[in-house]
């Protein structure tokens, strides 16, 4: 009879897994893109219609890529944190304005603050798909070689900046230490 119990045993293990899985937030699963080259894109600049932003031109320095949108409520809470980080001038922050309306996005930046060197305007979300974005906001740490080193899902908090982003960035800037 024992071998006939194997399917049942497998199923019980599955149920236990699913039960535990229900408690967790699947959105915390990291991107498969971590430690892979950032997808290359060329997108129009949000504020300057005639200019475009090319990701490969940003190589040579580590930077943050923050995915945001004017329709995103969580982004409002995140903006002061990013503003403070930008004022420290430790790392350039680029924005990826995801599935948004240009006029509303600019207005939103004027109201909540613009921490970005530049924001790329990804109206269709096509680049967002390349980056595996499934919830806004998300923040990517890209190193000087153009490799994604970390992905944070959800709003960046002061704790995330101090405990994860800044230590990681200083390690990326001084790889020997």
């Amino acid at each position: 009879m024992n071998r006939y119990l194997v399917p049942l045993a497998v199923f019980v293990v599955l149920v236990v897994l699913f039960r535990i899985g229900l408690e967790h937030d699947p959105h915390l699963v990291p991107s498969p893109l971590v430690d892979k080259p950032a997808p290359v894109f060329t997108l129009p600049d949000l504020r300057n219609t005639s200019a475009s932003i090319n990701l490969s031109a940003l190589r040579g320095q580590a930077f943050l890529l923050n995915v945001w949108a004017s329709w995103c409520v969580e982004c409002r809470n995140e903006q002061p944190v990013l503003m403070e980080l930008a004022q420290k001038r430790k790392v350039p922050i680029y924005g990826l304005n995801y599935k948004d309306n240009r006029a509303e996005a600019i207005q939103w930046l004027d109201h909540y603050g613009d921490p970005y060197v530049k924001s790329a305007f990804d109206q269709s979300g096509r680049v967002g798909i390349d980056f595996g974005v499934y919830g806004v906001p998300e923040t990517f740490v890209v190193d000087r070689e153009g490799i994604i080193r970390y992905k944070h899902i959800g709003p960046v908090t002061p704790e995330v900046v101090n405990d994860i982003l800044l230590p990681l960035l200083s390690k990326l800037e001084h790889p020997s230490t």
Partner: protein
Amino acid sequence: MIPELGHFALILALCMAVIQSFFPIAGAARGNVAWMSLARPAARAQLVFLLIAFGALAHAFLVNDFSVVYVARNSNSLLPMIYRISAVWGAHEGSLLLWVVILGLWTVAVTIFSEPLPEQFVARVLGVMGLISTGFLLFMLLTSNPFLRDAFPPADGADLNPLLQDPGLIIHPPMLYTGYVGFSVAFGFAIAALLGGRLDMAWARWSRPWTVMAWVFLTIGIALGSWWAYYELGWGGWWFWDPVENASFMPWLTGTALIHSLAATEKRGVFKNWTVLLAICAFSLSLLGTFMVRSGVLTSVHAFANDPARGIFILILLGIVIGGSLILYAWRAPGTLISSSYGLFSREMFLLVNSTLLTVAMGAVLLGTIYPLIIETLGGKVSVGAPYFNSVFIPLMAPLVIVLGIGAWSRWKADEWNRLWQHLRFAVFGSIIIGILLAAMLSGPGALRTALGVALACWIILSTTTLFYSRMHSGPDLIKTLKTQPRGFYGMCLAHIGFAVTIIGLVVTSNYSTDLHKRMKPGDKAELAGYTFELAEIRTIPGPNYQATEALFRISRSGKHVTELHTQKRTYSVRGMPMTEAGIGPGLTRDLYVSLGEPLGDGDWSVRLYYKPFVRWLWLGALLMASGGLLAVTDRRYRQVRLQATDPQEVIDGGAAIKS
């Protein structure tokens, strides 16, 4: 008023489902004929109430009744009529209703076509299907009622997700669900056989047409889903190993294994326990798919709204249905008698290898799908992508293909290597030569893989056509032989050729697709794979519930005009969501695919151009597989089932087996 009627009909359907499950199963256990005879009328009445509920929801969509929360969330007064109908199953609650309606349709089909089967057996089958329906109706009424009203209805609805506003999506979910839910019949037959202790060849013969029919729908449903992703998501991908896709692919793999294993059980009475386990697994995986898509336990591009309360409910339901059936299996299966033996080198053996390989492949997909969960439980975080599935799944398919060619030629019980070699050497050498020639002719990094894949596909085609040819020449009169061959044989040949066609499409398009990402303005030209793509003009076009910018491409090859393609970038007004409508020039050996990206200023646009060789073969092959299945279902043998089963001797045998 009408939504309340729908709600009420749903409650009545639940009552019918309870009657349909309790009385027939209890009646079968106690030998109470009156209780058993309730099964058929209860099942039919349940379907009537379900159809009323479905009609009520469809009516709410048609008349834009935005006081119904579900309608307000998924429709809009500007939504075209056809999408108001498909919006009925466009989100969680409505698609559950569709699920139950389809279960009702399958159940009533069983009540009609099971007349000749023993009453006790039919009562158990219908009872088990009624139990499943009870669970799902309870789930719907308690956690996901589509008829809930809003006291303060919005002036207009939030519109259907633009991704779902597409002709492919009108038929994709019903097809897929018909396939999924169809396995409930094979499941019902399996449980009834286990309950009655009657796991015999007749059981396999009865289940076979039902299983194949469900498999046909599932095949079409998966192919439609892949085709939809290809043209609607706008970047030319056709399979992503997404949890939701895997959820439909796992029952398909198990169903394929089940079809082949049933053949051996029906013809030779072997692998009864294995077959019954596959029948339980196929439906369990369908239920598991439903759970994974709706509970939010895994992330996916097309996940439904997540709600942990729903997750717990489906998990309990799963535990009862699957856990219960596996306990029954563990209890009853060991007593099964093995009625015949077979040699190491026989068709039985090849079919066993086939269903084992398919099951292992299913296990690999299951592991990949839930691996993130396992790791998470252990405290880590990981996500599994296409590289895992490709590197695990594809190596399992190669031996499967090789066994397929030999198995179709081999004889039941015992065969000789010499005889098989005599027949198969042509196909062996033919496919090896084609492979070597291709490897020599092709260039590029994927040349070896393509040559190997095409050679394997040729192996299937050559071994199947030689088998077909030799069968046709087995008698003196060709026409007579053509007529006397069972349809099951034709169906098998067609489905196997279809599998080969899909393999060719898969390897060629994965290894030789090329694409170009360019900045273009009207008048610009670009070269890709020998074709010249000219962006002729860009214009604005208003749609019913969106605004579109359309680009017209003229495509030529060495100066000769080939085709014109239109690609649109739409912004749906209500959700403000942009969508790309790709322009596709279909062809048997290649697709040309253009999709319009972003405006880059100065009249420039970013544009993606793709050349996709043999991509149509993927879906053409699936269509052939499904047609093969349909042919097999119409085999004369299954119509004879009724005559044989009404044979008094068999009924007596059946009765005796049930009592024992």
